[in-house]
């Protein structure tokens, strides 16, 4: 275990997150049981709903803070490892090891998946809670809350395990170990991701799914305003948003990272954050677009259609549109800049 201020803070937050996950699941189950046993005891149920709400709001705040904190911890490990020049080098700690360190790369991969999932699930609970606040708010959002608790528990346990696992038997690769496997020309065309071959395709696919997601969100918004429901357009828009996740990740790694950091043979997303920090805003906008479409769909599919919910869905669809449009605009501007 490497002990520094950031890893100490992250370990504390991870333990709190795991405990909150347990508390959310237990309290949620307790509420469900109480509702079945004494459905008319409104006071007691309300008190438990309030407890659940306070736990969930605390968990939501911690989930958002834990995402960047995890990467700050990984960054703080970089000077500790010979041969590691960025987070990519830290992530490869344990590869080829026979001891407990062999689990470290898998744990990092799991955490890179659970961090955004946790924020999305927590956000889903929040929008369902807001959508149902005129009724029995926490009850309507209870399934999302239980899922939030489970993901929080898994994420907290995985991060604690990662932080306390001894990091030995590291085999240095090269620099940050993320140089592109294929060769190609060092031309301006390649630097901006317009080179022939797979990079060209990744760029086209990224713009295509982005434009389709904006079009889907706009059509759903239009339908919602005119007909009061967005179902016909919302489903394809959400499907596009789900498809845009792997396409966006591939584009980020193979095209955006080498192009925007000015290093045509270096496919390292973490180095991109260091050399072009504004890319974090673009990634944040893209994630906001994906999440907002998912949240809008969860209201539409899980909550009854009324004026309040329609207004919230409209707001989320507009947010999704801004997210995708902002990300596409930032990429376009960066491509055309000298």
């Amino acid at each position, binding site marked *: 275990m490497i002990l520094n201020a950031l890893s100490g803070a992250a370990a504390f937050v991870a333990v709190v997150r795991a405990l909150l996950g347990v508390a959310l699941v237990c309290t949620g189950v307790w509420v469900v049981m109480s509702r079945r046993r004494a459905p008319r005891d409104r006071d007691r149920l309300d008190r438990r709903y309030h407890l659940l709400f306070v736990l969930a709001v605390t968990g939501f705040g911690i989930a958002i803070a834990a995402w960047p904190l995890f990467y700050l911890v990984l960054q703080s490990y970089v000077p500790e490892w010979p041969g590691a020049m960025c987070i990519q080098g830290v992530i490869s700690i344990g590869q080829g090891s026979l001891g407990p360190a062999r689990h470290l790369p898998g744990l990092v991969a799991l955490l890179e998946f659970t961090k955004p999932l946790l924020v999305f699930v927590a956000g889903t609970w929040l929008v369902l809670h807001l959508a149902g606040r005129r009724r029995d708010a926490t009850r309507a959002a209870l399934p999302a809350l239980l899922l939030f608790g489970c993901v929080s528990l898994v994420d907290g346990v995985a991060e604690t395990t990662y932080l306390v696992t001894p990091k030995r038997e590291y085999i*240095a690769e090269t620099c940050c170990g993320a*140089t592109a496997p294929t*060769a190609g*020309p*060092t031309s301006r065309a390649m630097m901006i991701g317009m080179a022939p071959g797979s990079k060209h395709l990744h760029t086209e696919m990224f713009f295509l799914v982005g434009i389709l997601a904006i079009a889907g969100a706009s059509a759903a918004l239009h339908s919602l305003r005119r007909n009061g429901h967005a179902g016909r357009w919302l489903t394809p828009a959400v499907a596009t948003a789900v498809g845009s996740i792997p396409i966006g990740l591939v584009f980020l790694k193979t095209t955006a990272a080498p192009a925007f950091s000015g*290093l045509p*043979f270096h496919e390292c997303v973490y180095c991109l954050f260091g*050399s072009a920090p504004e890319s974090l805003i673009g990634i944040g906008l893209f994630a906001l677009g994906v999440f907002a479409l998912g949240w809008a769909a969860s209201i539409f599919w899980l909550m009854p259609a009324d004026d309040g919910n329609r207004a919230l869905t409209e707001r989320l669809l507009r947010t999704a549109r*801004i997210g995708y449009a902002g990300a596409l605009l930032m990429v376009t501007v960066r491509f055309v*800049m000298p």
Partner: protein
Amino acid sequence: MRRFEVTVLLLAVAVTIAAPFTRRDTERCTLDGVDVQADFRVRIIDERGTDLAFCGVRCAGRWIERSKTRPHEIHVTDVTNGEELLASEATFVHDIQGWTESVPDFIRVFADESEATRHASTFGGELLRGADVPLSFSLSGEAPTHP
């Protein structure tokens, strides 16, 4: 479109345009973007006369391998005095000392072979000879080898 949406999009464009002007102007490795340390600097002049800097011999070798270009000239830096010399005139030592942020390579470069031998025996490591000598293919015309 509402004013808020337009403001967000304009801010995104403004940040993208302004950000490159705020970056510090340090010399970075052409392969992986690491800051170039003066004692380990490798300079390649490519076929078009472009001057490219690298943080070490390994990165320079990898860049030549991946770009599939034949450099016009390769200059390395003598680790003892920081003076530049042609790669073909240098002696390379594969050092067993650590690789840290300030020492970005396992390979040390010496202008003087006796100095290189002394370094290898004192600090551990071995002199690279024959096919193991890095960055030699550009002059010999042989297929690229990697350190």
